[in-house]
């Protein structure tokens, strides 16, 4: 398996800025996110404080970012990373059923808006899942709920429906899955995840639904779930001035690295994170040479 120098998670201004700098430094990189880039960005009405791009709309800004990526020959890999494993001197990123290896990781996946559902944290790994493609097989022949809060959620629900007995789909954001006999769309508001040793039901504003698993599919997950063991501060990953985190080789930038949630700050931090990753790679290579000598 190819091991990249730098894996970048997120296609907002922070992740893209990091990718541009990494590319200019001739590092092998993988940019993971969406070809639509960032929902938050494309929905922005107007940005007034980005130097050189006065009064640009979010949509125009996103289009120019896409053009720049294409000019620099940086493809976007359309995958959602559910977990980053720090293996020691490298990382493994789980993206659906794929595992991606990289020497460094830059997390630019945005900040999770809103709160966790009651019961979500308690039953995580015991009937609460953030990854349909990873965990679908555990629920063969069972009924599961999908809380759809991401652009990819309808596709994941369709995938689940091929494996599990029945999918109850609760749309929070975005489109609906394609019609299938075993997908039921319920326009109810998820309120709580219930269980004993593992999940037994999803409670909504209209009643309880018996399910074996609740797939909570959001664009961003809490950072300590995304990167087990990383030091966090609420919904943010704790970073230093070089965008370094508590895990050597892992960097964070943009909204996930803290406030202010501004595009210009995100882009600047993306640049710093990429340069820090390059410096880390040089240092790691230097160590190897010393050891071998």
């Amino acid at each position: 398996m190819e091991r990249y120098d730098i894996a970048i998670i997120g296609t907002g201004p922070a992740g893209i800025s990091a990718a541009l700098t990494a590319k200019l430094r001739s590092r092998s990189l993988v940019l993971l996110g969406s070809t639509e880039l960032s929902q938050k960005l494309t929905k922005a009405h107007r940005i007034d404080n980005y130097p050189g791009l006065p009064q640009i709309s979010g949509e125009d800004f996103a289009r120019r970012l896409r053009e720049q990526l294409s000019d620099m020959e940086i493809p976007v890999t359309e995958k959602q990373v559910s977990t980053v494993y720090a293996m020691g001197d490298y990382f493994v990123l789980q993206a659906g059923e794929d595992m991606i290896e990289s020497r460094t990781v830059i997390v630019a996946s945005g900040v999770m808006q809103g709160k966790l559902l009651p019961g979500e944290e308690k039953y995580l790994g015991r009937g609460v899942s953030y990854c349909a493609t990873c965990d679908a097989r555990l629920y063969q022949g069972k009924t599961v709920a999908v809380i759809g809060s991401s652009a990819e959620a309808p596709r994941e629900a369709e995938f689940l429906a091929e494996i599990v007995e029945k999918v109850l789909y609760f749309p929070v954001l975005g489109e609906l899955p394609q019609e299938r006999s075993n997908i039921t769309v319920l326009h109810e508001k998820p309120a709580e995840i219930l269980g004993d040793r593992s999940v037994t039901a999803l409670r909504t504003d209209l009643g309880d639904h018996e399910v074996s698993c609740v797939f909570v599919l959001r664009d961003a997950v809490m950072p300590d779930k995304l990167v087990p063991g990383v030091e966090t501060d609420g919904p943010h990953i704790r970073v230093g001035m070089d965008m370094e985190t508590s895990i050597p080789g892992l960097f964070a930038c943009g909204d996930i690295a803290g406030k202010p949630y501004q595009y210009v700050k995100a882009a600047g931090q993306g640049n710093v994170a990429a340069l820090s990753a390059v410096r880390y790679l040089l240092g790691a290579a230097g160590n190897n040479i010393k050891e071998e000598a």
Partner: protein
Amino acid sequence: MVNEIINNDFEAVKNAATAVVDFNATWCGPCRMLAPVIEELSEELEDVEFFACDVDDNGALAQAFGIQSIPAVGLFKNGRLVEMSVGFKPKSAIKQFITSRA
């Protein structure tokens, strides 16, 4: 080297001054990621004996130690559980977990 525990046989752990037991299962993704980390640590920490315990094959042990979520890494002294670390953690954190108590 990491020794596989079979048939709920815990004798080797009881006889070790310091032992680390990695409770896992084949269907658990984070467990599969932790396995190579444990393997590397077993090479680095020579005074500690390392074991892997599949909770499906060793149900009695999993129950005895109240394993509810895996991966779970237990640190044992002379067969007595000192502390349990639950979930995947970075290699440096697992190493710290072991060496600060070993």
